[in-house]
Protein backbone atom coordinates (compact mmCIF):
# COMPACT_ATOMS: atom_id res chain seq x y z
CA UNK A 1 0.00 0.00 0.00
CA UNK A 2 2.83 2.38 0.88
CA UNK A 3 4.48 1.52 -2.40
CA UNK A 4 1.33 2.57 -4.24
CA UNK A 5 1.07 5.80 -2.21
CA UNK A 6 4.70 6.64 -2.92
CA UNK A 7 4.30 5.91 -6.60
CA UNK A 8 1.30 8.26 -6.85
CA UNK A 9 3.09 10.87 -4.74
CA UNK A 10 6.05 10.76 -7.09
CA UNK A 11 3.82 11.17 -10.12
CA UNK A 12 2.07 14.15 -8.57
CA UNK A 13 5.20 15.86 -7.23
CA UNK A 14 7.14 15.49 -10.45
CA UNK A 15 4.27 17.14 -12.27
CA UNK A 16 3.79 14.15 -14.56
CA UNK A 17 0.12 14.21 -13.62
CA UNK A 18 -1.87 17.14 -12.30
CA UNK A 19 -4.45 15.05 -10.51
CA UNK A 20 -4.96 11.48 -9.41
CA UNK A 21 -8.40 9.92 -9.22
CA UNK A 22 -8.55 7.32 -6.49
CA UNK A 23 -10.68 6.30 -3.55
CA UNK A 24 -10.48 7.55 0.04
CA UNK A 25 -11.96 6.12 3.16
CA UNK A 26 -14.66 8.42 4.47
CA UNK A 27 -16.00 7.02 7.72
CA UNK A 28 -15.86 3.45 6.47
CA UNK A 29 -17.21 4.29 3.00
CA UNK A 30 -14.72 4.48 0.15
CA UNK A 31 -15.59 7.47 -2.04
CA UNK A 32 -13.85 8.86 -5.13
CA UNK A 33 -11.36 11.64 -4.61
CA UNK A 34 -9.14 13.70 -6.88
CA UNK A 35 -5.72 13.94 -5.27
CA UNK A 36 -3.59 16.96 -6.14
CA UNK A 37 -0.08 18.21 -5.39
CA UNK A 38 -1.50 20.96 -3.16
CA UNK A 39 -3.13 18.49 -0.78
CA UNK A 40 -0.64 15.68 -1.00
CA UNK A 41 -1.23 14.61 2.61
CA UNK A 42 -4.62 13.26 1.63
CA UNK A 43 -2.76 10.37 0.01
CA UNK A 44 -2.55 8.82 3.48
CA UNK A 45 -6.27 8.13 3.18
CA UNK A 46 -5.93 6.41 -0.21
CA UNK A 47 -7.56 2.97 -0.08
CA UNK A 48 -8.03 0.02 -2.39
CA UNK A 49 -11.31 -1.53 -1.23
CA UNK A 50 -12.56 -5.05 -1.88
CA UNK A 51 -15.21 -3.90 -4.27
CA UNK A 52 -15.34 -1.94 -7.47
CA UNK A 53 -16.30 1.61 -8.18
CA UNK A 54 -17.14 2.96 -11.68
CA UNK A 55 -13.92 4.97 -11.87
CA UNK A 56 -14.13 5.76 -15.57
CA UNK A 57 -17.55 7.42 -15.15
CA UNK A 58 -15.98 9.87 -12.71
CA UNK A 59 -12.91 10.20 -14.92
CA UNK A 60 -15.07 11.25 -17.89
CA UNK A 61 -16.61 14.06 -15.84
CA UNK A 62 -13.15 15.29 -14.82
CA UNK A 63 -11.82 15.04 -18.38
CA UNK A 64 -14.75 17.05 -19.70
CA UNK A 65 -13.96 19.81 -17.23
CA UNK A 66 -10.16 19.73 -17.60
CA UNK A 67 -9.57 18.42 -21.13
CA UNK A 68 -5.91 19.44 -21.25
CA UNK A 69 -4.69 18.11 -17.92
CA UNK A 70 -2.92 14.82 -17.43
CA UNK A 71 -4.89 12.73 -14.99
CA UNK A 72 -3.86 9.58 -13.19
CA UNK A 73 -6.54 7.08 -12.35
CA UNK A 74 -6.69 3.91 -10.29
CA UNK A 75 -7.84 1.10 -12.58
CA UNK A 76 -8.73 -2.54 -12.19
CA UNK A 77 -8.84 -4.91 -15.16
CA UNK A 78 -12.35 -3.84 -16.09
CA UNK A 79 -11.59 -0.11 -15.77
CA UNK A 80 -8.56 -0.63 -17.97
CA UNK A 81 -10.68 -2.26 -20.68
CA UNK A 82 -13.05 0.70 -20.35
CA UNK A 83 -10.15 3.12 -20.87
CA UNK A 84 -9.23 1.35 -24.11
CA UNK A 85 -12.80 1.60 -25.39
CA UNK A 86 -13.16 5.24 -24.29
CA UNK A 87 -9.98 6.13 -26.17
CA UNK A 88 -11.26 4.22 -29.21
CA UNK A 89 -14.47 6.22 -29.10
CA UNK A 90 -12.54 9.46 -28.68
CA UNK A 91 -13.90 10.25 -25.24
CA UNK A 92 -10.44 10.47 -23.70
CA UNK A 93 -6.95 11.04 -25.07
CA UNK A 94 -4.95 8.04 -23.94
CA UNK A 95 -1.69 10.03 -23.72
CA UNK A 96 -3.34 12.36 -21.20
CA UNK A 97 -4.44 9.50 -18.96
CA UNK A 98 -2.03 7.66 -16.70
CA UNK A 99 -3.57 4.42 -15.45
CA UNK A 100 -2.31 3.14 -12.12
CA UNK A 101 -3.13 -0.55 -12.17
CA UNK A 102 -4.56 -2.62 -9.36
CA UNK A 103 -4.80 -6.39 -9.78
CA UNK A 104 -7.87 -8.01 -8.25
CA UNK A 105 -7.64 -10.75 -5.67
CA UNK A 106 -8.65 -14.33 -6.45
CA UNK A 107 -11.85 -13.94 -4.42
CA UNK A 108 -12.85 -10.83 -6.34
CA UNK A 109 -12.06 -12.39 -9.69
CA UNK A 110 -14.22 -15.36 -8.81
CA UNK A 111 -17.14 -13.36 -7.49
CA UNK A 112 -17.04 -11.17 -10.63
CA UNK A 113 -16.52 -14.18 -12.91
CA UNK A 114 -13.91 -11.95 -14.50
CA UNK A 115 -11.97 -13.29 -17.46
CA UNK A 116 -9.17 -10.76 -17.05
CA UNK A 117 -8.92 -9.46 -13.46
CA UNK A 118 -5.77 -7.44 -14.05
CA UNK A 119 -4.89 -4.27 -16.00
CA UNK A 120 -2.13 -3.90 -18.58
CA UNK A 121 0.30 -2.54 -15.99
CA UNK A 122 0.10 -3.63 -12.37
CA UNK A 123 1.24 -1.33 -9.56
CA UNK A 124 -0.58 -2.98 -6.69
CA UNK A 125 -1.61 -6.55 -5.93
CA UNK A 126 -0.73 -9.88 -7.47
CA UNK A 127 -1.93 -10.99 -10.88
CA UNK A 128 -4.30 -13.96 -10.74
CA UNK A 129 -5.65 -15.96 -13.64
CA UNK A 130 -9.09 -15.11 -14.98
CA UNK A 131 -12.20 -17.21 -14.65
CA UNK A 132 -13.75 -18.74 -17.76
CA UNK A 133 -17.34 -19.36 -16.85
CA UNK A 134 -20.29 -19.35 -19.21
CA UNK A 135 -22.66 -21.27 -16.99
CA UNK A 136 -25.16 -18.38 -17.01
CA UNK A 137 -25.37 -18.58 -20.82
CA UNK A 138 -25.56 -22.36 -20.78
CA UNK A 139 -28.45 -22.24 -18.36
CA UNK A 140 -30.50 -20.15 -20.79
CA UNK A 141 -29.35 -22.14 -23.80
CA UNK A 142 -30.55 -25.37 -22.21
CA UNK A 143 -34.15 -24.11 -22.40
CA UNK A 144 -36.31 -24.33 -25.52
CA UNK A 145 -37.48 -21.18 -27.28
CA UNK A 146 -40.74 -20.69 -25.39
CA UNK A 147 -39.01 -21.45 -22.10
CA UNK A 148 -36.41 -18.81 -22.83
CA UNK A 149 -39.05 -16.22 -23.68
CA UNK A 150 -40.98 -16.97 -20.51
CA UNK A 151 -37.78 -16.72 -18.50
CA UNK A 152 -36.70 -13.41 -19.99
CA UNK A 153 -40.15 -11.80 -19.99
CA UNK A 154 -40.41 -12.77 -16.33
CA UNK A 155 -37.06 -11.17 -15.63
CA UNK A 156 -37.77 -8.03 -17.68
CA UNK A 157 -41.16 -7.55 -16.03
CA UNK A 158 -39.33 -6.91 -12.75
CA UNK A 159 -37.74 -3.77 -14.23
CA UNK A 160 -38.63 -0.53 -12.46
CA UNK A 161 -36.98 1.58 -15.17
CA UNK A 162 -34.49 3.19 -12.80
CA UNK A 163 -31.84 3.44 -15.57
CA UNK A 164 -29.33 2.15 -13.02
CA UNK A 165 -27.78 -0.21 -15.57
CA UNK A 166 -27.22 2.66 -17.97
CA UNK A 167 -26.03 5.17 -15.40
CA UNK A 168 -23.38 2.93 -13.91
CA UNK A 169 -22.16 1.66 -17.27
CA UNK A 170 -18.73 2.94 -18.22
CA UNK A 171 -19.60 2.39 -21.88
CA UNK A 172 -22.78 4.52 -21.76
CA UNK A 173 -21.29 7.84 -22.78
CA UNK A 174 -23.64 8.89 -25.59
CA UNK A 175 -24.98 12.45 -25.43
CA UNK A 176 -28.41 11.26 -26.45
CA UNK A 177 -29.76 7.99 -25.15
CA UNK A 178 -31.96 5.72 -27.25
CA UNK A 179 -33.72 4.64 -24.07
CA UNK A 180 -35.08 8.18 -23.77
CA UNK A 181 -36.10 8.44 -27.41
CA UNK A 182 -39.87 8.61 -27.50
CA UNK A 183 -40.08 7.33 -31.06
CA UNK A 184 -38.45 4.04 -30.04
CA UNK A 185 -39.54 3.38 -26.47
CA UNK A 186 -42.47 4.85 -24.64
CA UNK A 187 -41.10 7.55 -22.36
CA UNK A 188 -42.58 8.99 -19.22
CA UNK A 189 -44.16 5.79 -17.98
CA UNK A 190 -43.32 2.80 -15.86
CA UNK A 191 -42.99 -0.10 -16.21
CA UNK A 192 -41.04 0.06 -19.48
CA UNK A 193 -42.12 -1.65 -22.68
CA UNK A 194 -40.62 -5.12 -22.67
CA UNK A 195 -38.63 -6.69 -24.18
CA UNK A 196 -37.64 -3.74 -26.41
CA UNK A 197 -36.31 -1.60 -23.55
CA UNK A 198 -33.79 -4.23 -22.52
CA UNK A 199 -33.04 -5.48 -26.02
CA UNK A 200 -32.15 -2.01 -27.28
CA UNK A 201 -29.54 -1.80 -24.57
CA UNK A 202 -28.46 -5.36 -25.19
CA UNK A 203 -27.85 -4.78 -28.87
CA UNK A 204 -26.13 -1.50 -28.18
CA UNK A 205 -23.70 -3.42 -25.99
CA UNK A 206 -22.52 -5.46 -28.97
CA UNK A 207 -19.01 -4.20 -29.62
CA UNK A 208 -19.21 -2.01 -26.54
CA UNK A 209 -19.62 -4.15 -23.42
CA UNK A 210 -16.37 -4.75 -21.55
CA UNK A 211 -18.03 -7.34 -19.29
CA UNK A 212 -17.48 -5.65 -15.95
CA UNK A 213 -20.85 -6.70 -14.59
CA UNK A 214 -21.55 -3.47 -12.73
CA UNK A 215 -24.98 -3.25 -14.42
CA UNK A 216 -26.08 -6.47 -12.80
CA UNK A 217 -24.67 -5.40 -9.43
CA UNK A 218 -26.51 -2.08 -9.68
CA UNK A 219 -29.86 -3.54 -10.74
CA UNK A 220 -32.29 -3.33 -7.81
CA UNK A 221 -34.56 -5.91 -9.46
CA UNK A 222 -31.75 -8.46 -9.94
CA UNK A 223 -32.33 -8.87 -13.66
CA UNK A 224 -29.50 -11.02 -15.10
CA UNK A 225 -28.53 -8.30 -17.57
CA UNK A 226 -24.95 -9.39 -17.76
CA UNK A 227 -25.90 -12.67 -19.46
CA UNK A 228 -27.55 -10.71 -22.27
CA UNK A 229 -24.50 -8.58 -22.79
CA UNK A 230 -22.16 -11.52 -22.46
CA UNK A 231 -24.14 -13.21 -25.20
CA UNK A 232 -23.65 -10.37 -27.69
CA UNK A 233 -20.03 -10.07 -26.61
CA UNK A 234 -19.54 -13.75 -27.34
CA UNK A 235 -21.28 -13.39 -30.72
CA UNK A 236 -19.03 -10.52 -31.69
CA UNK A 237 -16.02 -12.70 -30.92
CA UNK A 238 -17.42 -15.78 -32.68
CA UNK A 239 -18.68 -14.17 -35.85
CA UNK A 240 -16.40 -11.19 -36.26
CA UNK A 241 -13.38 -12.02 -34.14
CA UNK A 242 -13.79 -8.77 -32.26
CA UNK A 243 -13.19 -8.50 -28.54
CA UNK A 244 -13.72 -5.18 -26.81
CA UNK A 245 -11.14 -3.70 -24.48
CA UNK A 246 -8.20 -5.37 -26.18
CA UNK A 247 -6.74 -3.04 -28.74
CA UNK A 248 -7.31 0.68 -28.93
CA UNK A 249 -6.76 0.75 -32.68
CA UNK A 250 -9.11 -2.07 -33.64
CA UNK A 251 -12.42 -0.61 -34.80
CA UNK A 252 -15.92 -1.82 -34.04
CA UNK A 253 -16.92 -4.04 -37.00
CA UNK A 254 -20.56 -3.03 -36.60
CA UNK A 255 -19.57 0.51 -37.46
CA UNK A 256 -16.49 0.15 -39.64
CA UNK A 257 -15.59 -2.38 -42.29
CA UNK A 258 -12.02 -2.65 -41.14
CA UNK A 259 -8.87 -3.72 -42.89
CA UNK A 260 -10.32 -6.97 -44.20
CA UNK A 261 -12.15 -4.81 -46.70
CA UNK A 262 -15.34 -5.97 -48.21
CA UNK A 263 -15.24 -9.66 -47.43
CA UNK A 264 -18.16 -11.16 -45.62
CA UNK A 265 -17.03 -13.75 -43.07
CA UNK A 266 -18.39 -17.11 -44.20
CA UNK A 267 -19.80 -17.78 -40.73
CA UNK A 268 -22.03 -14.76 -41.22
CA UNK A 269 -22.93 -15.38 -44.83
CA UNK A 270 -24.55 -18.69 -43.91
CA UNK A 271 -26.94 -17.20 -41.35
Amino acid sequence: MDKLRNYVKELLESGEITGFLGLIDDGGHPIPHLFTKEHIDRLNDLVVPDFRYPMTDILLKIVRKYPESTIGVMVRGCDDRALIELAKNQKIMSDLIRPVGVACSKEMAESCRCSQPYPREIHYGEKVEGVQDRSDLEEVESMDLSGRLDYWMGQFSKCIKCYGCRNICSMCFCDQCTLEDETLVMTGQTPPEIPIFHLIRAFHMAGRCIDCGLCEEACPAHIPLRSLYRKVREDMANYLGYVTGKDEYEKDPLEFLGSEGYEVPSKIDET
Partner: protein
Amino acid sequence: MSDVKESFEPKIIAFCCNWCSYAGADLAGSMRLKYPPNVLPIRVMCSGRISPHFILKAFQKGADGVLVTGCHYGDCHYIKGNYITKRRVTIMKDLLKFIGIDSRRLKADWVAGSEGDKWARVATEFTEEIRALGPSPLRG
Protein backbone atom coordinates in the same frame (compact mmCIF):
# COMPACT_ATOMS: atom_id res chain seq x y z
CA MET B 1 -57.29 -24.63 -33.11
CA SER B 2 -56.65 -25.57 -36.72
CA ASP B 3 -59.18 -22.92 -37.78
CA VAL B 4 -57.18 -20.28 -35.95
CA LYS B 5 -54.00 -21.27 -37.70
CA GLU B 6 -55.62 -21.26 -41.12
CA SER B 7 -57.03 -17.80 -40.63
CA PHE B 8 -53.69 -16.45 -39.41
CA GLU B 9 -52.40 -13.72 -41.65
CA PRO B 10 -48.84 -12.72 -40.80
CA LYS B 11 -47.82 -9.10 -40.54
CA ILE B 12 -44.46 -8.58 -42.15
CA ILE B 13 -42.41 -5.41 -42.21
CA ALA B 14 -39.95 -5.21 -45.10
CA PHE B 15 -37.27 -2.56 -44.94
CA CYS B 16 -36.12 -1.78 -48.49
CA CYS B 17 -33.23 0.35 -49.57
CA ASN B 18 -34.06 3.17 -51.93
CA TRP B 19 -31.63 2.26 -54.69
CA CYS B 20 -32.04 -1.48 -55.26
CA SER B 21 -34.68 -3.30 -53.22
CA TYR B 22 -37.38 -0.66 -53.36
CA ALA B 23 -36.81 -0.36 -57.09
CA GLY B 24 -37.04 -4.16 -57.24
CA ALA B 25 -40.33 -4.12 -55.38
CA ASP B 26 -41.54 -1.38 -57.68
CA LEU B 27 -40.54 -3.43 -60.70
CA ALA B 28 -42.42 -6.42 -59.32
CA GLY B 29 -45.53 -4.24 -59.38
CA SER B 30 -44.84 -2.93 -62.89
CA MET B 31 -44.32 -6.49 -64.08
CA ARG B 32 -47.72 -7.38 -62.58
CA LEU B 33 -46.08 -10.07 -60.45
CA LYS B 34 -48.06 -11.26 -57.48
CA TYR B 35 -46.72 -11.22 -53.96
CA PRO B 36 -48.62 -11.45 -50.66
CA PRO B 37 -50.21 -8.25 -49.31
CA ASN B 38 -48.90 -9.21 -45.83
CA VAL B 39 -45.58 -7.61 -46.71
CA LEU B 40 -45.46 -3.90 -45.89
CA PRO B 41 -42.44 -2.25 -47.49
CA ILE B 42 -40.81 0.69 -45.73
CA ARG B 43 -38.39 2.64 -47.86
CA VAL B 44 -35.12 3.79 -46.31
CA MET B 45 -32.17 5.33 -48.10
CA CYS B 46 -29.80 2.41 -47.46
CA SER B 47 -30.02 -0.93 -45.71
CA GLY B 48 -27.24 0.45 -43.51
CA ARG B 49 -29.75 3.05 -42.36
CA ILE B 50 -31.86 0.33 -40.77
CA SER B 51 -31.00 0.71 -37.14
CA PRO B 52 -31.29 -2.56 -35.21
CA HIS B 53 -33.67 -0.59 -33.01
CA PHE B 54 -36.14 -0.38 -35.95
CA ILE B 55 -36.17 -4.17 -36.12
CA LEU B 56 -36.81 -4.43 -32.38
CA LYS B 57 -39.55 -1.79 -32.62
CA ALA B 58 -41.27 -3.76 -35.39
CA PHE B 59 -41.29 -6.90 -33.26
CA GLN B 60 -42.42 -4.94 -30.22
CA LYS B 61 -45.37 -3.55 -32.14
CA GLY B 62 -46.48 -7.01 -33.18
CA ALA B 63 -44.75 -7.80 -36.47
CA ASP B 64 -44.58 -11.54 -37.10
CA GLY B 65 -41.56 -11.20 -39.32
CA VAL B 66 -39.05 -8.58 -40.41
CA LEU B 67 -37.43 -8.66 -43.83
CA VAL B 68 -34.36 -6.53 -44.40
CA THR B 69 -33.45 -6.06 -48.04
CA GLY B 70 -30.64 -4.17 -49.66
CA CYS B 71 -28.37 -4.13 -52.69
CA HIS B 72 -26.17 -7.09 -53.59
CA TYR B 73 -22.64 -7.03 -52.23
CA GLY B 74 -20.60 -4.53 -54.18
CA ASP B 75 -23.69 -2.76 -55.53
CA CYS B 76 -24.43 -0.59 -52.50
CA HIS B 77 -25.01 3.01 -53.50
CA TYR B 78 -23.06 4.01 -50.40
CA ILE B 79 -20.42 1.36 -51.11
CA LYS B 80 -20.50 -0.56 -47.83
CA GLY B 81 -23.88 -0.13 -46.12
CA ASN B 82 -25.07 -3.66 -46.84
CA TYR B 83 -21.94 -5.31 -45.41
CA ILE B 84 -22.57 -3.58 -42.09
CA THR B 85 -26.26 -4.53 -42.29
CA LYS B 86 -25.40 -8.19 -42.71
CA ARG B 87 -23.19 -8.10 -39.62
CA ARG B 88 -25.83 -6.37 -37.56
CA VAL B 89 -28.60 -8.72 -38.64
CA THR B 90 -26.45 -11.74 -37.79
CA ILE B 91 -25.83 -10.52 -34.25
CA MET B 92 -29.50 -9.53 -33.91
CA LYS B 93 -30.71 -12.98 -35.00
CA ASP B 94 -28.57 -14.60 -32.33
CA LEU B 95 -29.82 -12.18 -29.70
CA LEU B 96 -33.45 -12.87 -30.65
CA LYS B 97 -32.82 -16.60 -30.44
CA PHE B 98 -31.20 -16.16 -27.05
CA ILE B 99 -34.26 -14.47 -25.58
CA GLY B 100 -36.62 -16.99 -27.16
CA ILE B 101 -37.80 -15.53 -30.47
CA ASP B 102 -37.32 -17.79 -33.49
CA SER B 103 -34.43 -16.29 -35.47
CA ARG B 104 -36.16 -17.25 -38.73
CA ARG B 105 -38.51 -14.32 -38.11
CA LEU B 106 -35.71 -12.00 -39.16
CA LYS B 107 -34.17 -12.31 -42.58
CA ALA B 108 -31.75 -10.29 -44.66
CA ASP B 109 -31.72 -10.71 -48.43
CA TRP B 110 -30.37 -8.82 -51.41
CA VAL B 111 -32.56 -7.70 -54.31
CA ALA B 112 -31.29 -5.57 -57.19
CA GLY B 113 -33.32 -2.93 -58.97
CA SER B 114 -33.74 -5.20 -61.97
CA GLU B 115 -34.89 -8.22 -59.98
CA GLY B 116 -38.64 -7.71 -59.74
CA ASP B 117 -39.11 -11.46 -59.94
CA LYS B 118 -36.65 -12.07 -57.12
CA TRP B 119 -38.44 -9.56 -54.90
CA ALA B 120 -41.78 -11.30 -55.49
CA ARG B 121 -40.17 -14.68 -54.78
CA VAL B 122 -38.40 -13.53 -51.60
CA ALA B 123 -41.57 -11.86 -50.28
CA THR B 124 -43.71 -14.93 -51.04
CA GLU B 125 -41.27 -17.42 -49.56
CA PHE B 126 -40.75 -15.36 -46.42
CA THR B 127 -44.50 -14.91 -45.92
CA GLU B 128 -45.06 -18.66 -46.22
CA GLU B 129 -42.23 -19.36 -43.77
CA ILE B 130 -43.73 -16.96 -41.22
CA ARG B 131 -47.21 -18.37 -41.81
CA ALA B 132 -45.86 -21.81 -40.93
CA LEU B 133 -44.18 -20.44 -37.78
CA GLY B 134 -47.43 -18.92 -36.55
CA PRO B 135 -48.05 -15.63 -34.77
CA SER B 136 -45.17 -13.89 -33.02
CA PRO B 137 -45.08 -14.60 -29.28
CA LEU B 138 -44.75 -10.85 -28.72
CA ARG B 139 -48.01 -10.14 -30.53
CA GLY B 140 -50.33 -8.79 -27.86
